[in-house]
């Protein structure tokens, strides 16, 4: 059998658009906003309690994340053991998350148990009083975890980069220290919960194998906690945080060294604060970032890893910074060639500023983006984070259907222009941590 047909690649189709069904947020009779995903007969239900508060609202390090993490840690009449044990018994799992602007408590369980699990979770979230023992244990465990993180060069390169860019006191640059775990008190958590984490303040996101009865049951649980109005607390001034970093910033490339003993690589972090003018510029930045370091085929990965073998992984991405971004380049690099690697990054910057990317690369990044973007909506649980993204950025409900046409409309000239606006080595603070002897 001949294999000559293999020389012709199968025709791949372009992923041009996404046609999402209605994406709408409704209100329960109690006034709480609720997002209901497309029901799916999978036997599992996921319910998310979403508060519009995060680390931005905290008055002391770790206050928000500890207050959210310990929402099921017990109360006057139940210990953490009692609370979690019942959830365990029903086969339910739960998790929490806290970011700059929002916090969530998610539970997932078999459909047959959803009402019992919801009763229990809502009751104990409301009653949670952060018993002293549970609070002290959580602090001990987290302190140990932070100590281990601090052994790694990556922790320090990331931390120092953000501190240098935004300043240690700014919410985008602040990091907790080990000593902060000695300062924080149980009362800080009680205060935070009282002010920020009431059931009156939540939005619900429900997905998986739920039905109308499930929704009505959740509504019933909120009857005594009428909504106080769900709103992300966003101050327009947050868009442009003052830069408290060193004065050299924006004049000459700033490189900060953080040597560490017993390390064999150099952890690199480069950060820059980016303020896109409008949605179209966000699309251009998205594509520029892909070319730079946003996927395996990016310049950083192809040149530093696939051509020179100087790293296992290097990439770039946008970290949310309120309505803007912290553009971050991050990688663990061969320490004896660190100078070569930094020069190479600069050459990539220059190349993107001086030369239009060719049609082949332009098509590849758009097609790659389109594929990842569309598949990101697959599955019964995918929409929850997409809805939260709309809320965080105050975007319209049809936003996702508009993205791909706009992405495909971006030109190579626009990407080069965007590179010239943003991609300056003097706009980035570079931190090298670990083995920095070279």
């Amino acid at each position, binding site marked *: 059998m001949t294999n000559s047909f*293999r020389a012709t690649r199968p025709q791949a*189709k372009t992923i041009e658009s996404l046609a999402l069904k209605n994406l709408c947020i409704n209100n329960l009779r109690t006034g709480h906003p609720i997002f209901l995903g497309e029901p799916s007969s999978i036997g599992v239900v996921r319910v998310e309690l979403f508060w519009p508060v995060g680390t931005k609202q905290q008055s002391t390090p770790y206050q928000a994340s500890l207050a959210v993490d310990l929402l099921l840690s017990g109360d006057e009449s139940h210990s953490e053991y009692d609370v*979690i044990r019942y959830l365990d018994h029903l086969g339910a799992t739960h998790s929490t998350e806290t970011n700059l602007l929002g916090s969530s408590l998610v539970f997932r369980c*078999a459909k047959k148990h959803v009402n019992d699990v919801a009763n229990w979770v809502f009751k104990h979230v409301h009653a949670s009083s952060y018993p002293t023992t549970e609070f002290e244990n959580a602090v001990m465990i987290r302190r140990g975890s932070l100590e281990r993180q601090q052994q790694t060069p990556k922790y320090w390169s990331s931390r120092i980069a953000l501190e240098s860019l935004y300043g240690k006191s700014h919410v985008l640059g602040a990091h907790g220290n080990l000593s902060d775990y000695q300062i924080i008190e149980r009362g800080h958590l009680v205060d935070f919960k009282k002010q920020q984490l009431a059931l009156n303040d939540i939005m619900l996101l429900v997905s998986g194998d739920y039905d109308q009865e499930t929704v009505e049951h959740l509504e019933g649980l909120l009857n005594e906690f009428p909504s106080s109005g769900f709103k992300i607390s966003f101050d327009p001034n947050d868009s442009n945080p003052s830069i408290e970093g060193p004065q050299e910033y924006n004049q000459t490339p700033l490189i900060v060294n953080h040597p560490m003993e017993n390390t064999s*690589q150099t952890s690199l972090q480069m950060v820059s604060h980016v303020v896109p003018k409008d949605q179209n510029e966000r699309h251009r930045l998205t594509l520029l970032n892909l070319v730079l370091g946003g996927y395996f085929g990016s310049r950083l990965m192809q040149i530093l890893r696939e051509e020179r*073998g100087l790293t296992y992984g290097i990439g770039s991405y946008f970290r949310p910074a309120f309505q803007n971004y912290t553009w971050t380049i991050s990688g*663990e690099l061969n320490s004896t060639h660190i100078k070569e690697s930094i020069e190479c990054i600069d050459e990539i910057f220059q190349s993107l500023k001086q030369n239009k990317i060719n049609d082949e690369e332009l098509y590849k990044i758009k097609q790659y983006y389109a594929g990842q973007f569309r598949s990101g909506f697959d599955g019964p649980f995918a929409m929850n984070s997409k809805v939260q993204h709309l809320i965080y950025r105050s975007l319209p409900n049809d936003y996702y259907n508009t993205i791909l046409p706009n992405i495909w409309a971006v030109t190579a000239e626009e990407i080069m222009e965007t590179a010239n606006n943003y991609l300056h080595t003097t706009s980035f603070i570079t931190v090298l941590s670990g083995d920095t002897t070279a």
Partner: protein
Amino acid sequence: MYSYNQFVLNNGLRVIHLEDKTRTTIVLNTLYNVGARDESADRTGFAHLFEHLMFSGSENVPVFDKEVEEAAGQNNAFTNNEITNYYLVMPNENVETAFWLESDRMLALNINEKSLSVQQGVVVEEFKQRCFNAPFGLLWHHVRSLVYKTSPYQWPTIGLNFHHVEEAKIEDVRSFYDLFYCPQNAIISVVGDITIEETKSLADKWFGGIVKSAPPNKNIYIPEPDQTERRFLETEDLSPNPAVFLVWRGPVFNDPKSLHLEMFSEVLGGSDVSPLQMELVKKQQLFNSSECFYLRGLGEGLFVLYGILNPDISHADGEKALYDIIQQVTDGGEDISSAYEGVKNRHVTNLLFEATQPMQLAQKLCYYANAGDIEQINHEPSIIEGIALADVMSTATATLKENNVSVIYYHPKK
């Protein structure tokens, strides 16, 4: 119940198909029956290095990743001691590109000095990142060298040291490829919105013409004698706190008792209020972190239990406390019975959730087929439901003894 189909091509390639009409992407997963246990003792880390080389292009695909990306797909791979697994995720409309790419590197990989040299550098950096720059990064080196004395499980997938990776020769690459990367030593699964007819047609078109003469891997290895004594290692690592690790060998994947130990690990430490957490971390405050798990492999089973010590707690006290908590759990009681019911419920819920994860499913289908019983994927919930607590405790008692344990005491590196 998963209504999968399976068939075998004339060249011996096994194909599994599972239709899921709800997806916009299709997963093509390929499992090769080769892993680190197939390496020689002086060329460890080679199976993993070879995995990297599989992305270096093939006869008709000069740049593998470029083709994936232009078809709007994504891909990756992993290697362990027993298998090497590759996956491609493609938009439904471009699924044929996945068949083209995966089959072409099975047919005729582009093996050359340049890509070998570059990937040796990449893997050395991966070795440093994973093993030297992370707390307890050399754990699996220590565990495997302590637990295994004769079998090829004595080295980790990443390799005993990175010099082995640096010393690999192009002839090694060629012979490894010829020996293991053939259709009769592989299983593919296709999961997504694709019919069985289309799957058969594409599999036959792209994989059917690949004919290679090497026999399937027989998976015969130097056996490891039973461990009948306590083994001990004291070492330093990048860690702020001392730690104690206990490791036992146990039943392998196809032995039903391996599930007993998996369930036992869940009862012992699988929750925030499990005995391990409640007693040793929260009440006695001996550890600031403590976990356990059962590594359930085709040719090995390892029960790992560890605690990271709080200041002023000795290694010996930590070790004793870990034995005591095992004893406490195996002794049973009302709380343990109740916790066990929860563990079973959680297992079943997790299996339901897994049905929404096509990549996990595709990998699991290949893995179970390679293990010899793909139907386990449908029997799993009832098997778990049917495991009695007494059997779990009996297996744990018989396995987790102080006279067959391997113990590692970690000290912070100065």
